[in-house]
């Protein structure tokens, strides 16, 4: 049996790294005394995982955690206990229980939605239009641990278009980003592309980025909630 939950990473803890966020959740699980399953071996750890890593500095309304349980539990009780054990900046938004054989969230998450607020000190509408209508946008994506090496990716395979709203020198962006088994894109990378390739005058350091959703996509290309169906 697996307990799955949608949780948040709020502004107060946005600079906590993915590793630290994971460890924080692990300790909360221990404090909540859920009947968790442990890995075998010399240093047993709780069997749990997060669906997708979130970049440092980004807040989220849609982190998904999956915990393997050794015993059945009542979901309401589990949520209650965990709610009490979680530190500030992490809340449970939804939860469900599935069989152990159900595929891992990590394997089925295939898209994320983002909402960005960012200072923009000049005209941008025409440039954003240009991005949306472009057939192809290429980007040299740094290879993780690649010591500065990059790999060329097609941005449009991941992000088709952005919705935007510009007023008072602030730009609001909304977009969906595809997650594939071979990789995805970061919201910060899109902002960099908009600034560097499309001359959108953005102040990247002051971007306020939020992941608003994480979901699966069915055969028909429809969004499917990760939990609760």
């Amino acid at each position, binding site marked *: 049996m697996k307990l799955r939950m949608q949780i948040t990473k709020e502004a107060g803890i946005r600079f906590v790294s993915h590793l630290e966020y994971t460890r924080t959740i692990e300790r909360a699980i221990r404090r909540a005394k859920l009947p968790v399953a442990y890995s075998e071996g010399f240093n047993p750890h709780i069997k749990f995982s997060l669906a997708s890593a979130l970049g440092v500095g980004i807040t989220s309304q849609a982190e998904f955690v999956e915990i393997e349980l050794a015993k059945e539990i009542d979901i309401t009780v589990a949520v209650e206990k965990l709610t009490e054990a979680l*530190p500030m900046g992490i809340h449970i938004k939804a939860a469900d229980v599935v069989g152990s054989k159900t595929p891992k969230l990590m394997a089925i998450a295939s898209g994320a939605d983002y909402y960005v607020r960012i200072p923009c000190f000049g005209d941008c509408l025409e440039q954003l239009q240009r991005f949306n209508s472009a057939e192809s946008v290429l980007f040299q994506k740094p290879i993780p641990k690649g010591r500065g090496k990059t790999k060329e990716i097609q941005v449009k395979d991941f992000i088709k278009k952005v919705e935007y709203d510009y007023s008072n020198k602030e730009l609001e962006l909304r977009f969906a980003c595809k997650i594939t088994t071979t990789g995805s894109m970061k919201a910060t990378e899109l902002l960099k592309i908009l600034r560097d390739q499309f001359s959108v005058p953005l102040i990247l350091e002051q971007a306020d980025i939020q992941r608003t959703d994480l979901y699966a996509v069915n055969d028909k290309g429809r969004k499917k909630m990760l939990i609760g169906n």
Partner: protein
Amino acid sequence: MEFGSIIKTAEETKVSIALAFPDVYEVGMSYLGFKILYHILNAQPGVAAERTYAPWVDMEAKMRENSLPLTSLETMKALNKFDFVGFTLQYELSYSNILNMLDLGGITMLATERTEDDPLVIAGGPCVFNPEPLADFIDFFIVGEGEEVMVEVMDLYKKWKNEGKPGGRKEFLERVVQIPGIYVPSFYKVDYLEKETQGIPAGCVKSVTTVNSLAPTAVQKRIINDLNTIDYPTKPIVPYGEIVHDRIMLEIFRGCSRGCRFCHAGMVYRPVRERKPEVLKKLARQLVDNTGYNEMSLVSLSTADYSCLEPLIHDLINEFKEEKVSVSLPSLRIDSFSVGLAKEVQAVRKSGLTFAPEAGSQHMRDVINKGVTKEDLMNAVGAAFENGWSQVKLYFMLGLPGETDEDILAIAELAKAVQGKYKEVTGKGGAKVTVSVASFVPKPYTPFQWVGQNRLEEINRKQMLLKDALKIKNITYQYHDSITSVIEGVFARGDRRLGKALYLAWQRGAKFDGWSEHFSYDRWVQAISDAGLDKDFYATRERAEAEVFPWEHIQPGVSRQFLWNEYEKSKTGTLTDDCRHGDCTGCGVCPALDAKIIDWKSSVL
């Protein structure tokens, strides 16, 4: 805010104190004393204790650029808005950060220039047994263990505040100085010898006198006589990020009376007082439940000396087996008993085992009263190798009193013997031995407080000598920067005139001196000499028997006569026994503090 942090509302707060750690969060969060005070103070109605740490240099630059003050983590209040700012004094090289934090917090730097709008700046911790270099900057010091005295200070403040703060800061200081364990440096005047007198050089302290009749001639340290009676933080803060010691810290006892003659902690934290095994087990349960940590370290100055360690470890391991909580020991004694325990608390096994013979030759180990023989070490590493370890780390000190080149080369011999033991036990070569060497810094209130520290060139020469002798396969040699130990030595046994040097060094950019990338030796040497002082006068000078030390009006209870006798005995390599289970060796602490050794051996048998 992290799990376990405490935020009180303005209405709830009658007294506010910012507990300030003069280093970064990751370091400061790992100190037990700091956790204890946070807990004890916040448990008091009306008291809000918050935390603040030294911002790292890039952060500081941003704060200064945008004129943002240093604030607490809990309510983001600037330090100068607190009633108290309390610094932890863990190591001398953090002093520059104290000045920097006062400045960033918008607090008047010099205690004498502070106004009614400034907080009271206080400090405590191990370095308080010579607080003199900080006398210009601190309104008062807390001498000894803080659990009770800090609460008394807060109560006094509440009362004074309710009365409408009569007499201002001055009156508060006059009231607080009447609490035992409180040292108000401005109530004391220090005179120095103008010329050499009876073999004691000019510049040494002539006398320390009180200039306020309410101040005691000497401030006796405070201790908790029975640890079983006081509160222990069972809901410590669990940080999001990784800190230096990211685990449960269960303090099993205080004090150590093995009597190593170089050891400051061993002298100033006496006598030994253990917590009862039953109390510890109860605390352990609460700590595991409240923190969610999966590791618990049994901390003390020498954990293997806890009288009921074996049964305690058994019980803890059994209790937490299901929850996969491991138990770890921070240090090992040099014997096979300790190795046996290490084996039991499997978690240690991941890494190598660490032992601290401290010196290479038997003579040197006798000089420092380490009471360990080569045979002991061979037995201990032999047991380790038999149990599957193949890595050993050995700690030593260079520059001990009377040390010869042979004594230093004996370190290399010992490391080789350890490798030889591996071969003997396992039949193969290849044991990895790390030799880690620190330079010895004489500390106040140790038998070596009279000793001259080795000069920089001498230490460097010795380091190289050893380095050459250790060019052996599978032996790694690590040594610390000798330049930092010079400045550490100056401040460890310095007087209040050094306040000026500290101020100058800070003005010229000194901060994070404990971090080698920020430490500038030249800046310190220049600041000390610009203050009209001589670093060698403090560090390398052999001191006269009758010399009055700048710190003697702060009393940890160990008698001067005992320390001198120990120093004399060191010269002939005569050992002094541990009083924990044997006879009292007359250090003077117990009668001075009306305390006694608490050891649970007898009560359990």
